[in-house]
């Protein structure tokens, strides 16, 4: 352990650009234990409703879900990252709780957000404010820990710029749906990787369209998918929570 302490002492500032990359990659890596693997973003319900009946429907499904992520959730990531403080976070959390009218996605957001907050407050120990905010919110009792504001808060504190935070959020959403698609046997691992690379072009266009908006402009753009995702609790046999 002595060598580790020596090393961290030599790199006095974790804010240097190369070290920031390590934190960024850790946040985007699916190995970070935030439980994203338990959610299919409505894909499982869409398959059982025959909305996604063939593997070729998968690409459209992902694009429509990403567009909805952009229109509905990016404003919360953006605002949280721009002001990573307790008051802003609590306010955004309350607004998002009223905005996610779909109970299935609301519960999924809380479950992933709580996990991310718990993990980040331990991992990014150089930001004691993260642990303090987490404790303050837990004792408050009113805070849900929704995913998008937590993600923005953590990225903002770690030092990622606004556009990168929002791109990262789109990235992890795409990553998780594609992972769910392979587990639902809709596409194989190689096909999934090819698809992910193809969709990244569209994802970047969607980011450009929907970035940097205020939460009062948050809206949903795929009501059909929202309706279908809401059916998740009616599925008799299911792999995923949402």
């Amino acid at each position, binding site marked *: 352990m002595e060598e580790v302490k020596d090393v961290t002492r030599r790199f006095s500032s974790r804010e240097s650009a190369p070290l920031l990359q390590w934190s960024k990659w850790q946040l985007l890596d699916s190995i970070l234990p935030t439980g994203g693997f338990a959610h299919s973003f409505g894909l499982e319900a869409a398959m059982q*409703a*025959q909305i996604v009946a063939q*593997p070729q429907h998968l690409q459209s499904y992902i694009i429509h879900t990403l567009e909805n992520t952009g229109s509905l959730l990016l404003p919360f990531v953006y605002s949280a990252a721009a002001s990573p403080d307790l008051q802003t976070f609590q306010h955004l959390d*309350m607004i998002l709780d*009223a905005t996610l009218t779909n*109970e299935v996605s609301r519960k999924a957001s809380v479950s992933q957000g709580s996990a991310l907050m718990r993990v980040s407050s331990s991992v990014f120990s150089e930001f004691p404010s993260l642990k303090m905010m987490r404790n303050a919110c837990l004792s408050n009792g009113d805070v849900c820990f929704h995913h998008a504001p937590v993600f923005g808060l953590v990225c903002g504190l770690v030092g990622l710029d606004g556009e990168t935070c929002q791109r990262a959020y789109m990235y992890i959403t795409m990553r998780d749906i594609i992972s769910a698609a392979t587990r639902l046997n809709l596409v194989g691992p190689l096909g999934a990787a090819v698809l992910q690379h193809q969709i990244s072009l569209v994802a970047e266009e969607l980011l450009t369209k929907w970035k940097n908006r205020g939460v009062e402009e948050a809206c949903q753009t795929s009501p059909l998918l929202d309706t279908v995702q809401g059916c998740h609790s009616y599925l008799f046999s299911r792999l995923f929570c949402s």
Partner: protein
Amino acid sequence: METGSLVVSKVCSKSTVTRCFSKYPLKFMVPTKAAPSHIDAVWIYTLTYGGGIVSGDCISFDVTVEDGCTAVLTTQASTKVYKSVALKCSEQIMEASVGNDALLVVIPDPVTCFSTARYSQKQVFRVISGSSLLVVDWITSGRHESGEKWDFTLYKSTNHIYVETRPLFLDTVLLENGNVTSIAERMQDYQVIAMVILLGPKLKHIQNQIQEDVKKMMSEQLHAPSMGGRTKAINGDGYTKPPLIASCNSFGPKGIGSVVRIAATTTESVYRFLHSQLAGMEPIIGLCPYR
């Protein structure tokens, strides 16, 4: 610039419209005998001159339902939104407040936007814990017979509910034909989308009934693939997309409210669905909605 204002208060213990102001292009009609006399509910029809909303129209009105009253807001026919001229957007805004032990029921016919129309509507409801609210908000894809399916440029519908200044339900649906995806692609073969919001003590039994009915109806239509998806077409079992998909979920602390979302291939099927699910409203408002 207010186009209209409505107040419903108790007069001799009966819900009565005590203020009814409207100016062009909005008109309110309050028939004297809508509900049977033993039911305390007042029905108000909102109309627009010419039967539709014209490019650039801006209609805004407020509704106050005082303590203990029951008011129903409805339309005579579907709201048609005509094509946009010079890129102008038409707008309709309603602000409503519902008092204690009061009920506001908003049961319009659907909005139908014609090709190239641009339309935005916003409904803000301010309630307290003893208020009850039923709101139906729906849209069809256009004039299907003329081949107009999701052919309008922009439709935006916002529904906000605040309980004593605290936001409870903030929903905005935006359908815009954009450069990345078109509305028709996102809707697939579905031609109608609808939302029903139920909140408050007077509607609790209806909320519970709808939750059960929708669950039963949808459980029969959702089928897990019998084999993995890749080996053959997933629906090799012969299942097809349900002509009507609905999901009912609760919202708010302790699940005080319910929201039902519907997507369907025909307008008639949604009328039938609403008629059957809201049949329990008849003893409360005097008539069954969506006959």
